[in-house]
């Protein structure tokens, strides 16, 4: 009598979606109620969230533990600076090209690094990033070791005055982070997401059930590189200058991102968000004590990895059985009364 149907969400997740949309609306309206300093912090949180989601997609789902994603942050940044500075391309067009450019370069890179497995893959991606950093420091057109700056003319192209610029940059960062999050979320809810989740849980088992693991990983690597490049272009548009050291910094663009994902909960969509909040809070609290926040992040990441490998969100979700961004499918008996009668 009862029918079985496939549910894609829960009551909590629908309620949370409403809360999230209200929060997003409040953030979009921030230029009208927030201060410039707060807006910069929110923008930073937004791009870190995007980077964390992308690394999580790569490592948490596709099993590609890369420590070389800074390569694509730097490539995106450099592409943006070169296009606007040397080739006089419009700022927005340049930003749109920066992402696909990084994605394109990730194809030959994948040919080399996909030959390595596991931890060796990780260090291989790092070597590639070093190659890009060293190359950038040798190319005179890219400003060699000292890098490139955005000229005032390019900056004025966005908006003539400072306040207007900050508003536009803030909204762009918010939009791009939301888009990246949306892409990751929809991807995971799609057919490919099912394949990815299967790979996350067991690569040999998923392969034996007909998942083309190589192709799936390859696609994820390239999509992630392109999105990371886009975020990279955006980050350095805000910083107004780029150098090989800053653009390809493993600490800024990969280490802290990995810590965020691990502490928050790898292989979940909620985890990177929590990890990003933990990072920002720790950094702001310990701002006066130099690098201690990084040491503390390292200690927390080790403890989480050893004692609660599924991270803060993994613990909460297991304890209270909630999912805020459900990507799976669950079977439900409907209507509920018929279950009771039986």
């Amino acid at each position, binding site marked *: 009598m009862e029918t079985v149907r496939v549910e894609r969400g829960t009551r909590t997740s629908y309620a949370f979606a409403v809360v999230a949309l209200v929060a997003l609306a409040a953030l979009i309206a921030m230029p009208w109620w927030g201060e410039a300093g707060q807006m910069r912090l929110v923008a930073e949180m937004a791009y870190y969230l995007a980077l964390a989601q992308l690394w999580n997609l790569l*490592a948490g789902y596709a*099993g590609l*533990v890369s*420590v070389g994603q800074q390569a694509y942050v730097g490539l995106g940044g450099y592409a943006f600076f070169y296009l606007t500075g040397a080739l006089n391309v419009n700022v927005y067009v340049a930003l749109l090209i920066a992402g696909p450019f990084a994605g394109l370069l990730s194809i030959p890179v994948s*040919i*080399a690094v996909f*030959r*390595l*497995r*596991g*931890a*060796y893959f*990780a*260090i*291989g991606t*790092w*070597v*590639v990033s*070093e*190659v890009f950093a*060293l*190359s950038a*420091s*040798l190319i005179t057109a890219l400003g060699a070791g000292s890098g490139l700056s955005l000229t005032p003319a390019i900056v004025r192209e966005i908006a003539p005055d400072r306040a207007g610029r900050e508003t536009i940059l803030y909204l762009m960062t918010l939009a791009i982070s939301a888009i990246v999050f949306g892409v990751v979320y929809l991807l995971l809810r799609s057919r490919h997401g099912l394949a990815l989740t299967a790979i996350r849980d067991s690569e040999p088992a998923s392969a034996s059930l007909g998942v083309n693991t190589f192709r799936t990983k390859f696609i994820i690597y390239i999509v992630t590189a392109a999105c990371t490049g886009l975020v990279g272009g955006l980050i350095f548009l805000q910083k107004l200058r780029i150098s090989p050291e800053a653009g390809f910094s*493993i*600490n800024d663009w990969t*280490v802290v991102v*990995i*810590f965020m994902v*691990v502490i928050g909960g*790898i292989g979940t969509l909620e985890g990177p968000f929590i990890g990003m909040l933990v990072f920002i809070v720790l950094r702001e609290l310990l701002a006066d004590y*130099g*690098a*201690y926040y*990084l*040491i503390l*992040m*390292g*200690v927390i*990441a*080790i403890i989480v*990895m*050893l004692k609660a*490998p599924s991270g803060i969100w993994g613990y909460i979700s297991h304890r209270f059985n909630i999912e805020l961004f459900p990507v799976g499918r669950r079977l439900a008996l409907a209507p509920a009364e018929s279950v009771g009668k039986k």
Partner: protein
Amino acid sequence: MEWINTIIQGTLLGGIYALFAIGLSLSFGIMRLVNIAHGDLIVLSAYVALVVGQGTGLDPFSCLIIVVPVMFLVGYALQRGLLNQTLSGGLLPPLLVSFGISIIIQNGLLQGFGAYTHRLQEGAIETASLQFPGGISIGVYPLVVFGVALVALASLQLLFYQTGLGRAFRAVSDDPNTAELMGVDNRKLYAVALGIAMIFTAIAGVLFAIRTNFDPAAGPIRLILAFEAVIIGGLGSMWGTLIGGIVLGIAQSVGAALSPTWQILAGHLAFLLILIIRPSGLFPRTRD
């Protein structure tokens, strides 16, 4: 003649890279651990030598008497206290725990010593060189380092094939479960293994710090160089590590001869090239 000199310098440079790589290769060979903190442990050894030298007035070579046992204990404790707990959980835990250790060491050194560069002073041997007919000149110090690398590899060979400990290492490397059934205490053995790896790391750290400036951020590039030497040589192959180091050293010397800024990049490119044409390295041994 210029080129012969370049090749010789590159070969000798390979000695220090092989020393960097031995510890990494050992921990991979025995417990399949890729230690991301390896480079930072090399740099930590240099700092230990710096502190010991300042405290006692000993020269860097003599400092090894203290640095080596200290680093053995560091390795033993890291494996026993942290890394052993990551063995059963797949790829991510050991990688991320050693990644965390790496960041803690780097930033700990930064807080303790500041971002200044240091160098260990060994005196006249650093600049002495041997002259050969035909304008070939060989630095005494690189030659000593290369000799140390050879002795290190030979002593490992002896350890692995002539001692009971070596037999136990080979047994757990081949099949940890069966080794355990035969009465080997794997966890203790792994701790000893990382301790031994750290002995070579300590030697590498002190020898490199006599030749090159170091600062708290000097670790990651040492890890990459060690890693490249291991991969070029072939995973798990001890003498392959030396060949890997030499290939890397020659590639860098040739690069540097073309233009000084090309040195490191040329090494990376040689590594990527070998990776593409011969992914399992020149002399592969173990499979992961």
